[in-house]
């Protein structure tokens, strides 16, 4: 080191000990607070760990893992949700390869989780060797998909198309089956349950409510009076009603008004309720973004000769949606958690399964803490990775923005 470079190099970052001293022990009050906090943390961590590993009785979860996953889906047809899982995990792997930034953490977590589920020792005979093999295969398929997605064989457009095809295939053919067929006998949705229902409702709700919400937001700002009035009425009526009420309306009243033979499936009805509810809130979030776009942007687009549709889709929406990513992802996370409300219209989602598992045996009845914590952990994991992906999305889209 010579003397001239001393003046231009930035100061070295503080060593860890210095940092600790400066931030945690810079005075008797802070030192005392730090010590109190450490003692408190120690007791919280130790007592939680002791409870989780020694006191807690996890049998409700470990004896009925299949119930939590698929509900009462016929056990002899288990290969269908199994195949759905394999297809989905493979696509998750491909997507990880294409969009590593958003999905890497989630995918790696899934690989480990699925591999863990394949080997975790359980006393219950319901988890057969075949099911364990399926978990292991799903875990490996994520990685296989990742390698494929990372290579140049699959691009983003193809991946989106594949996702669409597979999602339609799973939700409309593979899981419900085809009436009067022997290979794919119909499985009524009353038998579906658990995580399967929760994910179907959440993913279906998000994918359907987003475009509807965007259209409503645009409609609310439309110059056509009919479109505008309809959008405002829809948004304000739905936002003025609790989700529980909407779910009741869709599951009870809709069924009463429609003739019996044209009855819409009850899960579809619940999904419609969720979509309608979420779309109204998405619309208001998107409207906030639309209002933040300076009028000069629209003027510049018009002056270049772009028509109204092009101006909206190429200039206004991309900027508006980018602004409201945090709000929209927040909306999606709350939609995901709100799927638990379908319990009250008799749908056996993750929470519903949790409730019914508690009644499986008199011993389980006092184990509510364990069951609900388990369910909460599942919801937390998904919500966390959603907000993580949103954070990454915000960062990567922030390029070039002032």
């Amino acid at each position, binding site marked *: 080191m010579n003397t001239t470079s001393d003046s231009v190099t930035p100061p070295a970052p503080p060593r860890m000990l210095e940092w600790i001293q400066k931030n945690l022990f810079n005075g008797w009050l802070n030192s005392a607070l730090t010590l109190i906090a450490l003692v408190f943390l120690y007791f919280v961590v130790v007592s939680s760990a002791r409870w989780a590993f020694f006191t807690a009785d996890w049998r409700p979860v470990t004896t009925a893992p299949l119930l939590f996953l698929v509900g009462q889906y016929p056990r002899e047809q288990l290969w269908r949700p199994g195949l759905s899982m394999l297809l989905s995990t493979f696509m998750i792997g491909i997507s990880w390869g294409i969009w590593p930034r958003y999905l890497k953490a989630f995918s790696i977590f899934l690989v480990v989780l699925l591999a863990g589920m394949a080997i975790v020792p359980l006393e219950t005979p319901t988890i057969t060797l075949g099911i364990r093999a399926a978990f292991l295969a799903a875990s490996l398929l994520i990685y296989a998909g990742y390698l494929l997605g990372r290579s140049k064989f699959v691009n983003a457009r193809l991946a989106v198309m594949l996702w669409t095809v597979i999602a339609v295939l799973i939700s409309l053919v593979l899981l419900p089956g085809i009436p009067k067929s022997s290979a794919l006998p119909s499985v009524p949705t009353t038998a579906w349950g658990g995580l399967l229902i929760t994910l179907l409702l959440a993913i279906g709700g998000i994918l359907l409510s987003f475009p509807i919400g965007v259209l409503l937001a645009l409609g609310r700002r439309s110059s056509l009076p009919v479109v505008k009035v309809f959008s405002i009425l829809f948004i304000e009526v739905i936002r003025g009603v609790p989700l529980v009420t909407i779910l009741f309306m869709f599951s009870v009243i809709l069924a009463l008004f429609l003739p019996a033979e044209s009855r819409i499936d009850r899960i579809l009805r619940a999904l419609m309720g969720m979509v309608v509810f979420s779309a109204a809130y998405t619309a208001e979030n998107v409207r906030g973004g639309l209002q933040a776009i300076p009028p000069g942007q629209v003027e510049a687009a018009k*002056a270049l*000769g*772009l028509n109204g549709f092009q101006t909206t889709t190429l200039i206004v929406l991309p900027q508006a949606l980018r602004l409201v990513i945090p709000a929209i992802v927040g909306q999606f996370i709350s939609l995901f958690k709100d799927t638990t409300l379908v319990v009250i219209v008799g749908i056996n989602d993750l929470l519903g399964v949790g409730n019914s598992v508690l009644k499986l045996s008199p011993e389980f009845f006092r184990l509510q803490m364990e069951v609900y914590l388990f369910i909460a952990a599942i919801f937390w994991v998904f919500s966390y990775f959603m907000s993580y992906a949103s954070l990454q999305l915000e960062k990567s889209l922030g390029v070039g923005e002032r």
Partner: protein
Amino acid sequence: MSTEPQQPIIVCKDVHKWFGSFHVLRGINMEVQKGEVVVIFGPSGSGKSTFIRTINRLEEHQRGTIIVDGIELTHDVRNVEAVRMETGMVFQQFNLFPHLTVLQNITLAPIWVRKWPKDKAEKVAMELLERVGIPEQAPKYPGQLSGGQQQRVAIARALAMQPKIMLFDEPTSALDPEMIKEVLDVMIQLARSGMTMLVVTHEMGFARAVADRMYFFDQGQIVESGTPQEIFNNPKEDRTKLFLSQILQH
């Protein structure tokens, strides 16, 4: 050049406009010939920006007629879109699209409106960036450029549609002083290439250098018009004299 009598490319007859009850344009008459460079100046609030924005119907006029390249501006959307394809516009606040790169800003309209293939649009865009002197900025986002560079990109973006007329609405008013020259240089070069230009500006040096005619706006009316010589050396109206003395004393 051609000997046949030239039809003016822009004809404005008795153009009126109100914002609510405020009468912002009070009977504007103007004819602009092909290849002419017209400078419009006047105090703020005189309606000059509003007027130039009626030429591509960013503002609707409520009385009178405006005919651009033989197309009358009416409520017919097709006419409006046809006129907007023939006119480029440069704004005071640049109005570049912040979510697109410089290159994408320039190629957007040629690809979507003129339906050019991407290669052709990009080739033309690079030529234009060359012309405004910043080809190396093509992959950047507008937010990474200086104001002068952004305005030059905005000029290139407007030129990419190969317009017959260029409208400039106070193109240098939002710029730091040291960046004004680089934008004016591009505009002077454009004027000398024979482009028909309507420029709202207070840059009297620019007017002196390339304007064919100047219009002084005040209170929604054209107070005086003439060649730069007439306006600078021999203004007839007192209001013009007063305004010029105020902006030229520096």
